[in-house]
């Protein structure tokens, strides 16, 4: 089934124009966000606070962060659906609300809200016309291929009101495809999807990547992001905390296993790590997870731990970097909130601040 889907996607021709334009505009970033400030309720709620972001053409870029961090607002600003208070957003060097930008934009909203009285085919025809693609020679074939790619060809004449959540999501993706976009904004594309659906999204993202289409994904499925995306930005409280390549993060999480199953005290470990620029992400009787600022710091960390007489049996890099980073960022946020609220403050870096059995990300579930 997946291979059939893959071949349908391979047959789908978003490529030609996107690839041609890619060579033309090589130096212009696909998305450039500078000093973006966006607030609601007459400035009382600051959703975005001086966001700077650059997404290069052909990147599959993920926006991650806890609920209410400002991911959807940032996407809304990039799509010019929301007006910014300060700063600017440029897509391929043009203002985000420029009509030329919309000609090459594909968008999948977080909660698909489509014309439920139409059937899938009519809906895609409608969006193809809106995107100005209905006069294309391959228009009818594009709709057929898009429906095949999202596996809705057998129900294409069923009224949309009778679709399940997952089917709506698939239809939304097909809607993105028929516009032959150069840049896609996908807000929670795997939301409500079954495992084959998630696999389909991954295949689609890989296909977009091969075709040079820039994709901005907002998702809580970190494992999916790690598999399909090239770069990411972590947003917290309306600010970009981290912005780098997925491969870089994946190699920056170290796991240190304690010799004889004797774990050092969190305070001692934190003090040692403070010397060498590491951050404690997790600590238990068997091992600790340490986030490095740079991969080059690994030897320094080992040296410091040994110097502090912390017995290590084994140390290695963890491949599950993004989810660990998420944990670190969210626990940092909670610690800073706690220290603001508590008069005595709390031990930085210690996961023992949390109630027993609760991991730092236990409150950061998907929307």
């Amino acid at each position, binding site marked *: 089934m997946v291979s059939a889907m893959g071949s349908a996607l391979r047959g789908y021709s978003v490529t030609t124009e996107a690839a041609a334009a890619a060579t033309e505009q090589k130096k212009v970033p696909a998305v450039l966000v500078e000093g973006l400030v966006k607030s609601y309720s007459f400035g009382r709620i600051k959703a975005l606070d001086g966001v700077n972001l650059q997404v290069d053409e052909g990147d599959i870029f993920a926006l991650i962060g806890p*609920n*209410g961090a400002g991911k*959807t*607002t940032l996407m*809304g600003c990039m*799509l010019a*659906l*929301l*007006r910014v208070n300060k700063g600017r957003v440029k897509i391929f060097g043009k203002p985000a609300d420029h*009509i*030329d930008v*919309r*000609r090459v*934009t*594909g*968008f999948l*909203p*977080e*909660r698909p*809200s*489509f*014309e*439920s*009285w*139409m059937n899938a085919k*009519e809906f895609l025809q*409608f*969006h193809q*016309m*809106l*995107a*100005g693609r*209905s006069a294309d020679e391959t228009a009818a074939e594009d709709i057929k291929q898009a429906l095949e790619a999202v596996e809705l060809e057998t129900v294409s004449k069923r009224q949309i*009101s009778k679709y399940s959540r997952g089917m709506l999501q698939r239809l939304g993706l097909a*809607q993105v495809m028929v*516009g032959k976009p150069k840049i896609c*904004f996908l*807000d929670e594309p795997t939301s409500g999807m079954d495992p084959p659906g998630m696999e389909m999204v991954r295949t689609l993202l890989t296909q977009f990547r091969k075709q040079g289409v820039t994709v901005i994904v907002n998702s809580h499925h970190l494992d999916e992001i790690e598999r399909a995306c090239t770069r990411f930005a972590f947003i917290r409280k309306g600010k970009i905390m981290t912005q780098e390549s997925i491969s870089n993060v994946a190699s920056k999480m170290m796991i240190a296993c304690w010799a004889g199953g004797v774990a050092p005290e969190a305070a001692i470990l934190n003090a040692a790590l403070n010397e060498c620029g590491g951050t404690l992400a997790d600590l238990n009787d068997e091992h600790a997870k340490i986030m490095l600022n740079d991969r080059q710091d690994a030897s320094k960390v080992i040296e410091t731990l040994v110097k502090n007489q912390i017995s290590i049996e084994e140390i290695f890099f963890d491949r599950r970097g993004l989810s660990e980073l998420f944990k670190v960022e969210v626990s940092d946020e909670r610690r800073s909130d706690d220290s603001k609220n508590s008069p005595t403050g709390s031990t930085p870096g210690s996961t023992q601040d949390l109630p027993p059995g609760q991991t730092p990300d236990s409150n950061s579930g998907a*929307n």
Partner: protein
Amino acid sequence: MNKAIFLFTMKRYFHWVNLAVGTILLLFCSITCGMLQTVDTPLTKEAARSFLFGPLIPIMVSYLVISPQVANSQRRKDGEYLSLIFSRPIERWSYVVTKWLTGSTFVLLVMTLQVALSYGISCIVGAFFSVQPGNVLDGYAIIDGILNTLGFTALVVFISSMPQRYAAIVVLLYAYIIFLLSFTVGTASYLDSLSIEQVSKNMTAIAQLLFSIFCVGFDSYHVVNSSNLPVANVLIYMSNVVLYLTLATLVMSYREFFYAND
């Protein structure tokens, strides 16, 4: 004008639920008008004339506002669907003008049907009772029908361009003004009958002012047959239509379309 919006909005208006409601209204107005046409008195002729388009235009145009909700079984959050539409290469003014023309075209189509049905009914009833059906459709009625449709649709497009909570406030405000207008006209007539002419005149002037500002109706018979050349009436009508469409475009341009759950 955007072809996709025009075609698919028109298709939505012809959704079976909308058609069912439209047919009931159409039959009601057509039967009433058709029956009245067969009674040959000045009063019934006037009534038939007013029933030709009178109730149909505001009802049909108002119905255009709720027809998307009727056609869509899923309840949609304000601005959710528009966020998807405006991610496409569509200018906001083009969206407004297309909606205005689509709404007007639909109502004019229904009105044409109504004229045909009214005449059909009056002919059948007239033949049954051996009465010659009267002709109430003249050039004035056609012009009024078209212009009033364009005017009312512009007003409705303006109201529906606003976020739902503001639209509700504007509709209430508008209803209050219409009530005030009716009240003023009624009181003026009463005072006139009591020969309190000056007050009556003043009230009529106020009513005329309210009418000119807030109403988008047009009376071509009055305009053509007025002793003074009523350029002002034509200008006020046109400026109102332009004003509502401009306001709708401005609202659409400055509106934010937030689509998130949280």
